């Protein structure tokens, strides 16, 4: 039939809308999105700093300078440009450790979000789309998972297997999928009942195609928000685990570990705890702001 169906346009039909609705442009919408600009900017800065750490850091983060132990940052008395953020009690350059620590934090945040995101999104999509027994099974798994406190299970596992960066990432990734599953499940249930899913079926789309092509793009805004929240919480959890001595092992420069090592000097050299603490707070803030902005940007209603 295609090809043979060229017929005249209908004359009697009036055009209802004004000729040209301006197609909303992405750059303009990004520029108006303050949360995304600030959060994304900060996050990009931290990401760049983490990637360029070997070139940016003035010293080897593991090299000890025993003459200059617990040196204060440059803006305080006795501070010097040799160690702009001072040194830790072993005389290691604090700025270098902070820069390398950003790598660890980001690596953990991103990997955990990806691992748990994959698990949780798959479960949530299947449960929300198929319902019935699948839904019951997923709900059961989510409830089971929620009944175990993350930090306790993580502590137990790390204590059993021994702490290392990858153990922490795996344990957190396998533990933090619950929110993905819950949010994806309810978002999918909503989308599933809409006509365009039935329309896709009536257009001959297979189930995997509908799940990935029709449902997933429409639940993506929720997914991104959860992913950012989970990345931020994974970074905090790693810091907590490292603080308790069961996360990333010294001498790796993790921010949580730095806070932990500094707690004994809190009253004498407060910057030791304040600097990584501030860095952590800024990173979490940037990630959350970025997630908020992305949600506004990606939700279909925001496109007008």
């Amino acid at each position, binding site marked *: *039939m*295609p090809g043979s*169906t*060229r*017929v005249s*346009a*209908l004359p*009697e*039909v*009036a*055009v*209802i*809308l004004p*000729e*040209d*609705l301006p*197609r909303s442009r992405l750059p303009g919408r990004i520029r108006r999105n303050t949360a995304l600009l600030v959060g994304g900017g900060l996050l990009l800065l931290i990401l760049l700093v983490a990637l360029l750490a070997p070139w940016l850091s003035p010293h080897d983060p593991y090299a000890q300078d025993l003459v200059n132990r617990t040196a204060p940052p440059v803006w305080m008395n006795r501070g010097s440009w040799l160690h702009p953020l001072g040194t830790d009690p072993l005389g290691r350059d604090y700025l270098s450790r902070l820069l390398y620590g950003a790598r660890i934090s980001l690596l953990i945040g991103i990997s955990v979000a990806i691992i748990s995101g994959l698990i949780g999104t798959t479960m949530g999509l299947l449960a929300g789309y198929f*319902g*019935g027994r699948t839904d019951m099974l997923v709900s059961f798994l989510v409830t089971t998972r929620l009944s175990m406190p993350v930090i306790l299970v993580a502590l137990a596992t790390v204590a059993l297997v021994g702490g290392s960066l990858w153990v922490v990432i795996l344990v957190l990734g396998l533990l933090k999928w619950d929110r993905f599953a819950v949010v994806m499940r309810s978002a999918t249930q909503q989308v599933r009942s*809409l*006509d*365009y899913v*039935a*329309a*896709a*079926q*009536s*257009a*001959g*789309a*297979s189930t995997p195609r509908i799940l990935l*092509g*029709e449902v997933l*793009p*429409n639940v*993506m805004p929720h997914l991104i928000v959860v992913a950012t929240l989970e990345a931020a919480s994974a970074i905090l959890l790693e810091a907590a685990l490292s603080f308790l001595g069961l996360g990333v092992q010294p001498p790796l420069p993790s921010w949580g570990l730095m806070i932990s090592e500094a707690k004994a000097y809190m009253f004498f050299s407060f910057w030791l705890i304040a600097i990584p603490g501030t860095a952590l707070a800024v990173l979490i803030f940037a990630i959350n702001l970025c997630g908020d902005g992305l949600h506004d940007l990606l939700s*279909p*209603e925001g*496109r*007008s």
Partner: protein
Amino acid sequence: MRPLPPGPPGTPPRAAPAAADVVLDVDGLDVDIATGQGTLHAVRDLTFQARRGETLCIVGESGCGKSMTSLAIMGLLPRAARRRARRLAFLGEDLAAATERRVNALRGSRMAMIFQEPMTALNPAYTIGNQLMEPYLHHRGGHADEARTRAIDLLEKVGIASAAQRLGQYPHQLSGGLRQRVMIAMALMCGPELLIADEPSTALDVTIQAQILRLLAQLQRELGIAMVLITHDLGVVARIADRVAVMYAGEIVEHGAASEIFAMPHHPYTRGLLDCIPVPGRTAPGGRLGTIAGVVPSLVGELKGCAFRDRCRHAQPACAQTIPVLGAPPGQRWRCILEALPATVAAEPA
């Protein structure tokens, strides 16, 4: 009713329907839905055919099983619903026995559906162009440029101005009427032989309704497709139907050519429906329109006899027995014990 439309040049004028013209053949279709209270018989023993170049209107009030029928044909029933049929054939191919893969290949390509609610039937995450082109590329393959050309062609044909620019727009940027036009264009992308339209104009305001119906009727004539139009609006039926199936409580109670049914309804329900709409010239100004007292019976559990007997003024004890189908297949058929309605009914006050 309406003069036979002139076919496009090159196509032969419409002849009497032959067996080869049957696009959709439904015989004894049942849809049962399992509910907490028992089995709900949503569709019972439905038999009809849709022919090439013909519009079949399925008309009935809310909850009479119209939409379930369309979903059953497309194989889109909800999980709780079961479909049974003596025969459910599309172009001679048994749909009930077809594999999921085969049904998916037919859906969208050779049979298409237009949904009631244009506001939710388009995916908000994709542009119009994307949604128009994807099924075409999926079913027909070919180059994206080809699909694009066809999409622009069809958008122009359904009366959308500056079609090329529309391709880049998202559904929320279009009004309801435009979206329904896009839905129609989308259904026609692969050149289907069967088009099922489930209340395509119900969600639109009245002026747009008329435009959409005219558009559907014109496209159906030009393209020579078989159209099954599901509606509760007899005004719509009068305007575009070739054949009419009147449904009540999951059954077809009367079936025949639109002209015959409007001229001489045989089933009391059809008569009741016709009495509800004003006819210029025949209905006295200021006079009362007819109503049908009572409500649709529950379809849960075992059903026997005529479902309309509680609301029918001609009800007799025999109505509780199995009801015969009167009339002969090419002409009008009705499911009633009465050979003909008493002529006085129309004059009676409601």
